[in-house]
């Protein structure tokens, strides 16, 4: 499955080398211009890598603001419980892009609550295992599912160490324009890609967090808020031993 990915990479590198001259002159200005602009008219490039830093010490136990904001933004709250299904069954099966995870250190008893979503790995296992190339990593680091080619095999769900992916089991009655969704496809957090492509700079979860626990931005830009925060505070990747180089990092776990 590495063949189609390599092809894209080659095509992308060919176009990027042309665009490099324009971006190299004033990279900061260029990025700012993109952020202010309306819909993207040029391909995303790897001059940007989107990432996130989540400060779990600010993350209040029991707070689900980011989860509900994500549900609203991406139409997950429009999905209805199948007729006859129990609440417990629905809780287990319903698609969720962010899960609230509670960790407890058994030695000290310290409890940490944190939001867990797609970690946007540099080397994503979900992309490795996808038989159709539907699971892919965009040039700017966002790991996504191309639903046009997803066949619903769910290998990616098995491969993901973070349990970040959901499957749509039933026909979908209401779907937002920004987040198309249908029966038989896998989906997960995409850093609110429709916002970013339309000139936005924030994600819904970040905007919703009253505690300021989520910082989102460009990991490659040393002046971005997320890069500055990463430089200032100790942070870690979850399951760093897998060497996936996740785009989502946590402090104070």
């Amino acid at each position, binding site marked *: 499955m590495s063949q189609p990915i390599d092809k894209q990479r080659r095509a992308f590198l060919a176009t990027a080398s042309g665009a490099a001259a324009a971006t190299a002159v004033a990279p900061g200005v260029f990025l700012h211009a993109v952020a202010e602009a309306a819909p993207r008219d040029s391909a995303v490039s790897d001059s940007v890598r989107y990432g996130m830093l989540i400060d779990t010490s600010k993350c209040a136990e029991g707070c689900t603001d980011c989860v509900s904001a994500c549900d609203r933004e991406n139409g997950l709250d429009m999905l209805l419980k199948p007729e006859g299904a129990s609440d417990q069954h629905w809780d287990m099966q319903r698609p969720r892009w962010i899960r609230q995870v509670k960790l407890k250190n058994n030695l000290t008893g310290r409890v940490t609550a944190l939001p867990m979503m797609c970690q946007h790995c540099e080397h994503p296992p979900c992309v490795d295992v996808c038989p159709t190339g539907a699971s892919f990593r*965009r040039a700017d680091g966002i790991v996504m599912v191309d639903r046009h080619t997803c066949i619903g095999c769910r290998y990616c769900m098995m491969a993901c160490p973070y349990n970040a992916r959901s499957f749509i089991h039933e026909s979908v009655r209401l779907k937002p324009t920004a987040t198309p969704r249908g029966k038989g496809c896998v989906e997960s957090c995409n850093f609110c890609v429709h916002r970013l492509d339309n000139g936005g700079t924030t994600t819904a979860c970040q905007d919703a967090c009253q505690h300021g626990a989520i910082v989102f931005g460009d990991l490659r830009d040393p002046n971005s808020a997320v890069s500055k925060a990463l430089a200032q505070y100790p942070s870690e990747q979850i399951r760093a031993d897998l060497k996936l180089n996740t785009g989502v990092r946590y402090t104070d776990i």
Partner: protein
Amino acid sequence: MKGKFGISVLLALCLVMFVGPGSALADEDDEVAAAGVEGTARADKLDACVAPTAFMRRNHFELIEHQRDITVHEGIRKTDNSLAGCIDCHVRHDAAGQYVPVNAQGEFCSACHEYVGASLDCFTCHATKPTGTE
């Protein structure tokens, strides 16, 4: 006794055949749509689509398919050929001023697709009317 049982099974089967598919369709449709009013789509007031009408009739799916790949993989959303753009422009209003899904019977997409017997897969996932999110 046996005969009566057989008949009731047959009746039940008939019921399932008639009621079953109907209820499945009702699940998948947005709602029972009122008829769109002629001339209420933005496209009705324009001379031509993003390309001449004859070209669009034969090739619209090529444009949409090309666009879907560059949008999903490259993030390019500024274009004339997005499906959301098609829907924005071709969706009609009913008498009450509400959007009528473009795939409802007799509406822009389904009118032709039903006539030529070509299945229309876009709307198992994509919104059938503008939802206010890009």
